[in-house]
Structure formats: structure tokens, C-alpha cells
């Protein structure tokens, strides 16, 4: 690469006793894409926040185009040409695209906004990088992928020469992610320099020129993408060899749950269309699909938060009509909700409270909560499921995503449920946590639990599921055996092409 546009040298940052960044040095060339790889808590976001002036480093400094960047000043970072695309977008849903982009770009005391030239500039950038937007759309009406586009455009509008993206694909579907990366490569070709933060090995290998690995606040390795492998990166990132577990052969037991022609209509649209599936004890049924195709509703249906419009649900051989949440709990259906922060846990409440919420009657005496046994129960989950970073009485919000997910898994699995509905169980987790979650799911399968695994991760489904059905536009494909398919065929199934595989879709 040619001259360095960005040099970070010797940056350290301490939060309390935690050394989040330990003497990190890093450079970025013009037109280069560098991936900052690391597990959650490795210090990636801290480093980028220092770069962008959100935090003051304890020591070390940042140089942009050969000029020292004053620390702790976002405005200075913007002026120096650094643009930040946050993971949780810094956008206002009630304002228009143009307003979001133009905020802070003009003197606060000018008598009128220069929306004309502003719009022209936005459209020119949008044209140049192929990032299509409607400048007058209300931001909240856009899809997540489009909102991210606005976030990128906002950085480019500020004349960013260096673009920093914090886990840009965390919120995107696979297709949106692919599109994003082709856009990023195009930007690099046009002379922009990019840093993206990630813990996904596939996208790092596919997109980056150079990979910088952080672990425990230290820079542990730097590799050219062409000269490394996923396995090596995974080991560098975790610090030991991590292998995701794969299911072993087994014979499933009796059918415990069956859906026959179930349709769910929401707001006059059939969101699930005459779906059929059956789930047997001791097996994992994978439901694969790009998110937004009805999987959320499917999980809700089985958890008791959505109602059938027609069709039958058969649970342990008996028709059950509609399930309520209490029914589902009572019947021994464990649930891993798709969005653990919104539906899986109540952030401001203690771990023990989150552990016993759905079975409070079991932890109360004379109408009062039996704190002692509830805290004991939470403690048992914490030790049995290796939840780190909190005691039963600490707030669950303080746990990392992986540990929160282990706790949610634990509160379901510790009671040996007969059915487990796991929606996107590994989404957003780092490699170590993914392996742990997968291992627990397989353990439940060995113990005879029937698992419905809803996922959009091909690898995850191939590794865990015995049988696979694709969900597309609210329809379910007929099941295929995991041994009989490869990623290509699964990809086709996810695109809705299953009829031509010779299996008629049973309607």
C-alpha cells in the first residue's frame, strides 16, 4: 500500500481496573481495507472511539494524513476526514434522510439551511458510490440496510477520507451484507481508506486486505488476508483453537410437535402460509431462511405470543388449538427468543429475577417471592452453564451478549424441557460463545429434547440440524435430510427454489 493516511501509535486506555487498549499501534494506507478482528470485549470499539474522539486515550496519539489529531474532539476527527458508521446508528428516525445527513454541517447561526446545495451534494455522493436513497424519506420508514446506507452517506457528506465501520453486518441480512461489502470495495478502489470491525471470519477473509487481530486489549497479530486462513484467524482471535461442535448420528424418537397446514394472518396478510412440519424427540429441525420471511412469527406461534388463523398444532399427540405463553411454559417448551435484549431479558433487573420470571409460582411462598431459592436457582444456572461476568444479584444488562445467551439457555435447559424453540441463538455472538451455545443445544438433543432451530446461518444449520426446512415468504419447504444437502442447494432453498428439486411442496 502507498502512504499511510492514518497512524495510531501506542494508544492505551484504562477503564477502572480494565485495560481496554494496551499500547496499540496501527496504520492504514490509502485505498486499503483493514479488518479489526476480535471477540466482544477485545477493545475494538474502544480503539475506534478514541480515533473518533469519543474517548480520551490515557497515552499514545493519532495522526491523520501526517497531522496530529487533538484527542477527545469528535468535531476535529470529522474535520480531519474520519467518518464513523456506528453499530447502533447515530440517526434520528423522525427526521428525513437529508436532515440526518446535514445535521451539524452548517453554522448554527445561519439564517437558513442550504438544503438545495446539500441535496445536490448528497445525490452526487449517492450516485458516485451507488448508494441509492430518497433524501426526503423519513428515516424511520427505511429498512435497516437503507438506514445504514444513510449512516455511510452521512460520513461521506462530511468529506470522510477514512471510514470506520463498527460491526457493519451485525444488523444486516446476508444479501444486504454482501451488497455492503461490494460497495466498500468499490469505495477503496476510489481512494477511500476503510477500517471495519468484525468478529465474523467469512466477511473478514472476503473483504479485507489486511487483518489486525485484537485480544484482551492487545494487538496480537497482523496478517495479509491473502496469507492467512479462517482457522488461523479464529485461533488468534480466541487465543486457543476453537472448534464448533457438530452433531453426531442418532435415532430420533417419537413426534412431539406437529403443525398441519397452519396459517397465521396479521393485518390481513398471511404471514405464515399453510406450513407443515413435525418435530421429533432427540432431533434438531433447522428452519433456514433470510430474516423477515416469517421466522419471527413461527417462533412466536410456538411460544404462545401469536395465534393461528387456521390449521392445527399437535403437541404430544393432542391437538392444542392456540397456545398461551403459560401453556407453552407448562408443556415444557423452552424458548430462546430472537432478540435477547428485548424479549429474552429485562436489562435493568437482576440475573436471578430474569432467571425465575417465567416460573415465579415455583419460587414464591405465601404470595411472596422466595428470594433465597430463586437466587440459588440462578446460581445453579450460572455455574452449570458457565455464565461469566455477573453474580445472581447483578443486573443482567451488565453481561456480554454471549453470557446473557448462556443464561437464557440455562434457564430453559436446566429444567430439561421436552421441546426447545431456539430463534437465531448464536446471532451476534463471538466464536467462543457460538461454540458454547451450539454445544448446549447438542447436549439437549442428546438428552432427548426436540429442538426447533431457526437460523439464517448456513453453517450453523448444517452443523446442528438433522433435518432442514427452508422458510420463504411465510412458506415452509418440505424437509430434507442434512446429509443430503450442501450449501449450494440450501442457498437455492432459501431463495424459494425447492419444487424443482423433485419434491412437490405439500400444500
Amino acid at each position: 500500500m502507498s502512504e499511510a493516511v492514518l497512524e495510531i501509535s501506542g494508544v492505551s486506555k484504562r477503564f477502572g481496573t480494565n485495560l481496554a487498549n494496551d499500547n496499540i499501534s496501527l496504520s492504514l494506507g490509502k485505498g486499503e481495507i483493514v479488518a479489526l478482528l476480535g471477540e466482544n470485549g477485545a477493545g475494538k470499539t474502544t480503539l475506534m472511539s478514541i480515533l473518533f474522539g469519543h474517548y480520551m486515550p490515557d497515552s499514545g496519539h493519532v495522526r491523520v494524513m501526517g497531522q496530529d489529531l487533538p484527542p477527545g474532539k469528535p468535531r476535529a476527527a470529522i474535520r480531519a476526514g474520519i467518518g464513523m458508521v456506528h453499530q447502533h446508528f447515530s440517526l434520528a428516525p423522525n427526521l428525513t434522510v437529508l436532515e440526518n445527513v446535514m445535521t451539524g454541517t452548517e453554522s448554527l447561526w445561519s439564517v437558513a439551511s442550504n438544503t438545495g446545495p446539500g441535496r445536490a451534494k448528497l445525490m452526487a455522493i449517492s450516485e458516485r458510490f451507488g448508494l441509492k436513497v430518497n433524501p426526503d424519506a423519513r428515516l424511520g420508514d427505511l429498512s435497516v440496510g437503507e438506514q445504514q446506507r444513510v449512516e455511510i452517506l452521512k460520513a461521506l457528506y462530511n468529506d470522510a477520507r477514512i471510514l470506520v465501520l463498527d460491526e457493519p453486518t451485525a444488523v444486516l441480512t446476508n444479501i444486504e451484507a454482501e451488497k455492503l461489502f461490494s460497495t466498500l470495495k468499490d469505495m477503496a478502489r476510489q481512494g477511500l481508506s476503510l477500517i471495519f470491525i468484525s468478529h465474523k471470519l467469512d466477511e473478514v477473509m472476503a473483504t479485507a486486505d489486511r487483518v489486525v487481530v485484537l485480544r484482551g486489549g492487545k494487538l496480537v497479530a497482523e496478517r495479509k488476508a491473502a496469507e492467512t486462513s479462517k482457522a488461523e484467524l479464529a485461533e488468534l482471535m480466541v487465543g486457543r483453537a476453537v472448534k464448533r461442535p457438530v452433531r453426531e448420528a442418532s435415532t430420533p424418537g417419537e413426534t412431539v410437535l406437529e403443525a398441519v397446514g397452519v396459517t397465521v394472518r396479521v393485518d390481513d396478510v398471511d404471514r405464515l402460509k399453510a406450513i407443515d412440519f413435525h418435530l421429533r424427540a432427540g432431533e434438531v429441525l433447522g428452519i433456514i431462511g433470510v430474516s423477515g420471511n416469517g421466522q419471527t412469527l413461527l417462533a412466536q406461534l410456538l411460544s404462545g405470543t401469536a395465534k393461528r388463523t387456521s390449521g392445527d398444532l399437535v403437541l404430544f399427540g393432542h391437538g392444542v388449538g392456540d397456545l398461551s405463553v403459560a401453556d407453552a411454559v407448562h408443556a415444557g417448551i423452552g424458548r430462546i427468543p430472537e432478540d435477547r435484549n428485548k424479549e429474552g431479558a429485562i436489562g435493568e433487573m437482576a440475573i436471578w429475577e430474569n432467571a425465575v420470571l417465567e416460573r415465579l409460582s415455583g419460587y414464591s411462598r405465601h404470595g411472596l417471592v422466595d428470594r433465597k431459592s430463586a437466587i440459588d436457582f440462578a446460581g445453579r444456572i450460572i455455574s452449570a452453564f458457565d455464565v461469566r461476568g455477573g453474580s445472581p444479584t447483578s443486573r443482567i444488562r451488565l453481561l456480554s451478549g454471549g453470557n446473557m445467551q448462556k443464561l437464557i439457555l440455562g434457564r430453559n435447559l436446566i429444567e430439561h424441557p421436552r421441546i426447545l424453540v431456539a430463534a437465531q441463538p448464536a446471532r451476534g455472538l463471538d466464536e467462543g460463545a457460538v461454540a458454547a451455545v451450539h454445544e448446549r443445544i447438542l447436549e439437549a438433543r442428546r438428552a432427548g429434547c426436540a429442538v426447533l432451530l431457526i437460523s439464517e446461518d448456513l453453517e450453523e444449520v448444517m452443523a446442528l440440524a438433522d433435518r432442514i426446512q427452508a422458510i420463504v415468504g411465510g412458506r415452509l419447504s418440505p424437509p430434507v435430510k442434512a446429509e443430503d444437502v450442501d450449501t449450494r442447494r440450501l442457498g437455492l432453498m432459501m431463495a424459494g427454489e425447492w419444487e424443482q428439486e423433485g419434491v412437490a411442496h405439500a400444500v
Partner: protein
Amino acid sequence: MNALVDILASAGLWAAVLRIATPLILGTLGALLCERSGVLNLGIEGIMTFGAMIGWLAVYNGADLWTGLLVAALAGGVFGFLHAVLTVTLGLSQHVSGLGVTLFASSFSYYVFRLMVPVAGTPPTVEPFQPIAIPGLSDLPFFGPAFFNQTPPTYLAILIAILMAYIILRTPLGLAIRMAGENPHAAEAQGINPMAVRYGAVIAGSALMAVGGAFLTLSAFNSFFPTMVQGRGWICIALVVFASWRPERALLGALLFAFFDGFQLRLQTALNGAVPYQIFLMIPYVLSIAALAVMARRARVPQALMQPYRRGER
């Protein structure tokens, strides 16, 4: 039926509507400005009371009427600053802080009034603003006496409404205020200091509220008594929601409420005691609740309203 038509066709009704609307316009704009920046200001009722008192007191002690309004605005700004310290810097509950400001400002008004003005059988008065006929326009039949023969603060209120709509919707400052109320983190990331923006908005908004209160003692009436704001502040809070946080709709909302109020006053007289007058007093509030229920369903609340902003926290 004829009585209704007579009422609606009288220029007096429409002149009264503008007069009744003036404090509501100012108060609503003030509350709206605070809320757009992300701060709910329930101090409004007390701030209006204090504005009514201190503006009147200044004039009673020899200041001219405009100075009276200015004194009210400054006093309002001081209470706004207090509310901002509590809610923006300290990040306390905006409800509780606002109610505290209202209780404090209301009682303090009465205390200062009692301290400065001796108890008298009839309350002391000042010479209030006089209507100014706008040359040309006030000669129009019906419209002239209805709309163009008002006291100066009424014209001022309408001008401020137009100005506020322009500032909030069309200028970079307005965009910064809206961004602070929608997503202060985004504002910060774009180099705007959301705390400073909120301070400014709350102080300026509170000044407007106090001017709205001063209108009552310096234009609508000519003396001060402690209960004179009579819940107008709370009506303003509701009008902000009714207006979907848009200044031009706030103007319309205030006029609509004032119309209900002016109308019921005249209806009372027209029906001459056939129906208990309390029913009429109720009308504007009942209609407002109905209008609010219809309008507020579509309203877009500033997303960061009532959320304290702390740097570096998500």
C-alpha cells in the same frame, strides 16, 4: 340556531378568540421548544404565574409595559435555567423536576406579591396594553374589528409562532434542536453539543411561557391574583401533543381552543341560564380531549423526549 349564527357572525367573538389564544400561543410555543430539544417542561404553569406576577409588578413600580414583558421573559429564563440544571446537567426525572418548578414558582409568585403589594380590598391595577388598529386592514368590514384591532402582544405572539416554525423547520439551529430531541448521541457524533442545545431551548422556551403569563396581567386584565393562570399551562402541554410538535399547528391548536372558550362564553349569555354554566365551562376541555385523541394518534413524539443525555453512554 339563530343564536348560534349570531354568535359566529359577531366580530366580537373572533376578536376575543385572538385575545384568549395569545397566552396559549406563547405558552405552547415555549413548551414545544423545550420538548423539541428533548426536555418536558411541566414548570410551565408556575412559570406563567410568575411571569404574570413579575411583569405586572415591574409595571406597577413604574416600568413601561414592554419592560414589564422583558422582565417576565428574564424571570422565565431563570426558572428555565433551574429546570435545565435539574434535568439536563443532573439528569433528574423531568416530570418531577417540572412539577417542582411549578409548585415553587407559583408559591414564590404569591409570596413576592404579598411582600411587595399591601393587602387591599380591591386589587391594585396598572394601565394595560391598548388595542392598536392596523392601518388599512382594520377598516375592512367584519375582518377589521375581528382580527386587526388587537393589543401589541397578540400580534407579537403570532409573529413569534411564524418565526418559530421557520427556525425549527428551516434553519441549522432548528435542525440541531430537533436532533438533540430525537437522538442526542447522533447530534454529539456530528459535533453538536446536545447539552448546550437543551439548555438554550429550555431557557428560551421558559421565557416565552413567562411572557404568555405576563400577557394576562398586562393586556387581558390589569391586575394580578395568584390563581389567574387557571391551568392554561397544562392546556399548553396538551396543545403541544395536539400540534404534533409543529409550531404552525400549535398556533392553530391554540386558536381552536380559544374559539371553543370564546364560543362557550357567548353561548352561556345567549342561553341565559337555561343550562348550568358549569356545562359550558367544560366544553373547551371536553372538545380538546376529543381533538387530542384524534390528532395525537398520528403524532410523532421526539424520540429522546424525557431521556437525559450523558456523554459516552448508550
